[in-house]
């Protein structure tokens, strides 16, 4: 299932939390060879994890991390504006209607629908919270995966070669993309909606009107 968890809520999900940060170490350091910080517990974190981001996490049936991405507003400090201005045409992308999506990670053992499930969840967030665009940082392999699941970003710029290649790209929400991704994920719109409402409330609890 998809979970939506702010960093300050992660402690309630110890296995999910630990496996997310170790899977990130596995993806970004071991497999991609990026220069990321991995602690003694084998967990990868950067300073943006300390800014109470919202994690969107694909939880496997055994309660472990299957994939995740990290969302932050672009109106505060964020990775794209701090480190990748040379890939955005020098434009500081900054608006409460544009959120940043970084550290897109898939565990080695995850099922084939995980990436699509995460993109589907990204669409739920956009639709519910008035987000018009995501600006994302991702590795070269993701370009192929995004394309396969029907949610290709518009690549603004890339740096590095091979495994170390990093790109900055943009997504926006369209009903067509939502339907394509839903189909790739094998997850119905209703189920996706249900997971979102489990995290953020259903919006159907009646607030009594004063007599």
């Amino acid at each position: 299932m998809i979970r939506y968890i702010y960093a300050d809520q992660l402690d309630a999900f110890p296995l999910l939390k630990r496996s997310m940060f170790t899977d990130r170490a596995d993806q970004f350091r071991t497999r991609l060879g990026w220069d990321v910080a991995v602690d003694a517990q084998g967990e990868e974190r950067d300073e943006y994890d300390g800014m109470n981001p919202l994690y969107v996490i694909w939880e496997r049936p055994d309660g472990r991390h299957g994939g995740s991405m990290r969302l932050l507003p672009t109106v505060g400090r964020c990775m794209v504006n701090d480190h990748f201005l040379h890939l955005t045409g020098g434009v500081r992308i900054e608006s409460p209607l544009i959120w940043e999506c970084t550290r897109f990670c898939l565990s080695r053992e995850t099922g084939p629908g995980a990436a699509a499930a995460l993109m589907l969840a990204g669409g739920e967030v956009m639709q519910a919270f008035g987000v018009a665009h995501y600006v994302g940082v991702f590795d070269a392999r993701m370009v192929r995966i995004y394309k396969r699941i029907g949610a290709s970003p518009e690549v603004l710029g890339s740096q590095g070669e091979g495994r170390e290649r990093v790109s900055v790209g943009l997504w926006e929400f369209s009903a067509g993309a939502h339907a394509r991704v839903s189909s790739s994920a094998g997850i119905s719109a209703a189920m996706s909606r249900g997971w979102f409402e489990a995290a953020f409330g259903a919006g159907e609890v009646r607030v009594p009107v004063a007599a």
Partner: protein
Amino acid sequence: MGSAEGIPVTGGFLEQLELAERREDLQSVAEALRDRFKVDHLVYHWVSANGEQYGCGTYDPVWVERYLEKGYLRIDPVIQGCFQRFHPVDWKRLDWSSKAARAFQWDAIAHGVGNQGYSIPIRGPNGQFALFTVNHSCDDEAWAEFTALTRRDMILIAHYFNQKALELEPGRRPEPAQPLSPREIEAMTLLAVGYSRAQVAETLSISEHTLRVYIESARFKLGAMNTTHAVARALSRGLIVV
């Protein structure tokens, strides 16, 4: 309730907001915004990292006094549900199930607070946290329609309001306004001379999607509600010359 679409570029509340020189001026901006949105209440509330509170808005002062006196900050599900968050929150999505929350809610309604609310949390610099709320009495259907229509306008306005409040905080230097990058200036200049979006994108050798993001970003930096307004502001500030 109404949408903020079609706000005149001059003489609107954004100009009033820009001209505000004292915190007290924000009160009249809040009232003007409430009238613009045709809602019962509009409230701005900030808590700094050291717990200092500041607010303005249209709630009955008796209610504000009572809220402080009762220490409702610790019970209010809106505060609990929005603190340290950055997504907008419809009050219906919050947990009102505890006895304390229900009692708080009845007390609020008895003091003229409407049954519907939409709050936008804002994380400012140095641990500042602010909440911008519109509140109204109506049924769920009407409220859903209103929030769907005005949500993005409200999110922008909430941030502009907070920027101004930060500027006016006694003893604090405002964050320097982010200037437009050369790429944004090129885009705004071409729009100002009447190019269509497609023509601007072609001229700058970027896609229309990228252009939309550049314009969105420039609009926010210029404190504008729409593209026309952003172009007008860039011109009047001398950021672009045509």
